């Protein structure tokens, strides 16, 4: 079982494993892999707990009811699965600032967390505007040959490549 302890698999092994997993989610759960609605539901649950009286009337939360569902459990499972894998391979580490970021912008925690927060807002807003993320559109949508998912996935990368180049080569350069 040495492969369970390997630090990193070939990207093809990891990709094929995810593809096979998608067969089973369709078969056993009638679901495609996806992640971003779980975050939207969580925000709705937090707003409701904080006393937000308009949550049940909000048209978005009528469509995506703030409750724990299959996909919410999937996202929780991702945290656990990544933890198990990292522990087995000895790559679990608590760190605040990624090396690539630190190499360009320094290793101060504040700027990295503020940037992650700002990027997260774009990501959350954009994922729900697009109706899916790199899993929902990028893997599940494209494997079903859905036209809108292929177009969306291409624009994820157009926006991502442009923003990353701007951030690292222009602002950070």
């Amino acid at each position, binding site marked *: 079982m040495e492969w369970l302890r390997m630090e990193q698999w070939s990207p093809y092994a990891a990709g094929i494993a995810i593809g096979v997993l998608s067969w089973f989610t369709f078969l056993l759960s009638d679901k495609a892999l996806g992640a971003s609605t779980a975050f939207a539901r969580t925000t709705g649950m*937090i707003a409701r707990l904080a006393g937000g009286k308009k949550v049940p009337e909000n048209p978005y939360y009528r469509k995506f009811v703030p409750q724990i569902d299959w996909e919410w459990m999937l996202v929780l499972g991702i945290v656990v699965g990544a933890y198990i894998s990292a522990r087995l391979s000895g790559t679990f580490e608590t760190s605040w600032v990624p090396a690539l970021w630190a190499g360009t912008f320094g290793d101060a925690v504040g700027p990295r967390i503020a940037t992650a927060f700002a990027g997260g807002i774009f990501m959350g807003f954009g994922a729900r505007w697009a109706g899916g993320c790199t899993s929902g559109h990028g893997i599940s949508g494209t494997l079903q040959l859905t036209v809108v998912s292929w177009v969306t996935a291409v624009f994820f990368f*157009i926006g991502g490549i442009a923003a990353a180049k701007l951030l690292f080569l222009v602002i950070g350069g």
Partner: protein
Amino acid sequence: MLTNIHRKKGLQLVLGFAAGILFGFFLQKGGVTRYDVIVGQLLLEDFTVLKIMLAAVATGMLGVHALQSLKLVRLHPKSGSWNTAVWGGLLFGVGFAVLGYCPGTLAGAVGNGYLDAATGGLAGILVGTGLFAAVYGRIEKTVLAKGDLKEMTLPRLLKVGAWAAVLPAAALIVLVLWLLERAGL
């Protein structure tokens, strides 16, 4: 179809959790729970993300369509429009680069111990989805609906059988991966 299993709510939550554990395990083993790998892809220096995604798509495509031919599954193509795809895609892309994780890999990064994902990143995504929920009612039938692509799939668009699209698409993905390797990326 295994509708008797699909209908069991409690069991489905357990299956979702189990699928998530496997998904998170594979993402971590692939290396994509790391900011450096994801941003490395967007800087076009490290092609791990694209290789994992394309391998998953080709594998998933063949298996899911085989299961559909056997009438064991039904497809769930997402609906959307040009405006959701282009503008949503670009906004997501900016977040992808600035945050350095996507929603699924952010969850994996949290499990891997990365605290920028667990604090600022997670809070930002939650705020972003909340802002979207706040404006959704005003843009649902206008901005978001413009250029409706419905739930169109490639076989339906080309008016061919599923396999006439699946086989060339899978072959094309394998070709792209082969070219990436040949280019030394």
